């Protein structure tokens, strides 16, 4: 008897919580459009050319230095790193952990970076290339030097993304002086690093860009993917302003650098 009352109370509490969170979600969704234009405009200024200085693109987790493809000597060896994952663990489901291992073994040919494919999010942020934030009136554009990748963060109200993409669908808002970007609608093709860390099309990334001084942004990304991980996990790192007076994004259009890898076997062989 007592237990059934407790059960009922728990159950109704659950319903209330569900309702409240639904309302919160709906409000949060309505918010960006509700105040109309000017959402990208904030006293917080993230404009500039930024770059991560770490080894996350080689491996998100802590790692010792390791060799690259042997025929290139020490050229493409991976520098060591202390890792950018909170607690260092990436909580793979068992089958996904196996796939990560396989990816690692075949990384020289399977890594989308080798093929010059779009980097996805958050990888675009910590590739060893600069990127530029252009904080417009109701959109924030992020242009990446690597592969001419571009994202537009919608600070105004937009429909849901109708298709899945490499770079995701980015909707932003300000929380104090933090730019929070909710990124969804990914395909399952991009990797997080050169070590085969991967995700599915259920990936959901929440990025937080917080100024930490005039030339530093503290960057955080919470990664959630119920098809691949057992729980959400988080990476964080500082992003540094490129202070050179003449700093500008240059082209790194790597498509032509990938053609031999992708199509070399389809070249006409020299005739005998």
């Amino acid at each position: 008897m007592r237990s059934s009352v407790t059960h009922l109370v728990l159950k109704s509490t659950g319903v209330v919580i569900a309702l409240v969170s639904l309302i919160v979600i709906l409000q949060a969704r309505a918010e960006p459009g509700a105040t109309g234009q000017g959402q990208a405009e904030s006293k917080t200024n993230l404009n500039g050319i930024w770059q991560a200085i770490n080894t996350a693109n080689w491996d998100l987790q802590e790692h010792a230095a390791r060799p690259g493809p042997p025929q290139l000597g020490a050229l493409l060896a991976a520098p060591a790193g202390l890792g950018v994952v909170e607690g260092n663990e990436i909580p793979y489901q068992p089958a996904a952990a196996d796939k990560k291992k396989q990816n690692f073994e075949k990384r020289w040919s399977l890594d989308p970076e080798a093929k010059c494919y779009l980097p996805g999010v958050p990888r675009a942020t910590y590739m060893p290339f600069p990127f530029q934030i252009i904080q417009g009136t109701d959109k924030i554009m992020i242009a990446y030097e690597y592969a001419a990748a571009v994202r537009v963060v919608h600070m105004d109200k937009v429909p849901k993304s109708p298709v899945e993409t490499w770079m995701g669908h980015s909707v932003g808002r300000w929380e104090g002086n933090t730019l929070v970007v909710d990124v969804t609608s990914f395909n399952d093709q991009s990797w997080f690093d050169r070590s085969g860390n991967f995700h599915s099309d259920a990936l959901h990334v929440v990025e937080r860009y917080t100024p930490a001084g005039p030339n530093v942004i503290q960057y955080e990304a919470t990664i959630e993917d119920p098809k691949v991980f057992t729980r959400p996990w988080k990476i964080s790192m500082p992003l540094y302003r490129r202070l050179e007076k003449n700093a500008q994004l240059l082209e790194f259009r790597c498509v032509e650098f990938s053609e031999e890898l992708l199509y070399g076997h389809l070249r006409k062989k020299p005739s005998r």
Partner: protein
Amino acid sequence: MVTFARSPAGKLFARLGVFAAIIVSGSVAVLLAGQAPAASTNGGSTSGGSATADPWVAKRTSWGDPDLQGIWTTDDEFNVPVERPREFGTRAMLTEEEVAQRAREAERRARDDKADRRALREDQTGDGPEHWYEQGKVISRRTSLIVDPPDGRIPPFTPEGQKRAKAQREKSSLANGPWNGPEDLDLRDRCITRGVPNTWFPSAYNNGFQIVQSPGYVAIFYERLHEARVIPMDGRPHVSSGVRQWIGDSRGRWEGDTLVVEAKNFSEKSQFRGATENLRLVERYTRVDADTVKVEFTVDDPTTWTRPWTAMVTGKKDPFYWQIFEYACHEGNYGMFNILSGARAQERAAEQAARKAAQKATQKPTEKK
């Protein structure tokens, strides 16, 4: 939903299938219900110019620059030829009758009528049905995109320019091969770049470009090939001529309410109608009204053409074009794979046939015995 079917998003999703179309029509409904579209370009008007009487007061950003921000599309000028057909002489606009003819032609192409579909010939890699193409919503009256010289035609090539333009045309999926490797296809086939000023010319689809501004920068993001130019406005010099880029190096300035961008330092591998790395490009962006930005660009390369020439395109707002779609071209470049493997298969077939013929030729004398 007639306008929807003829909108860029509608076309895109016609390509992606009914399922996506259902999703997007839901989104469009949300969009229509949730916010007043910034502009409506539909309606019966067939005129290129705006008939509104209200004088346009140029919008400014909160930091005081002329505001060119938004998503613009040149879809409406898909039916305007780059060069003016000679019969029009120096006449820049079509007559009412000619406009009606152009509208009928666009209407026919926009229909999904099997009879209108291009037949796929055996030697072609194929092309989509014509209703895939963005026909625009308003039929432009313009007779050419080129506005100078006054005859609307590209001035004569220098002899070297002519040679280069021909050589470039021959390396393309639309030419006749041989396709021995990726370099035998053009930059569009290879998904490397559409490039400027090439990307200004409206083509079959993905004609959108988005402008985002911040203090000291204007960024232009073209949907085709996801190309972004982040243009410094602070008067800094161009990068050294030692740094060559596919889409050059751009610097901008304001002349009144007009954005002027100069681009140079093109790569010798850039491809634009035979132009060389000496190409200088000057673009002038002027917002004409809430829904229109005019982009005029002058092309100057004395090693390629006997005089500079200028074209103009009109970017229009389209409430259905609410985002720049991801143009992940290289990532899905099955065309490259298929063209090269097809060429190798043809070679193998030809070799086999030659071997058989040779065998027959050697067998024949013994058969006669």
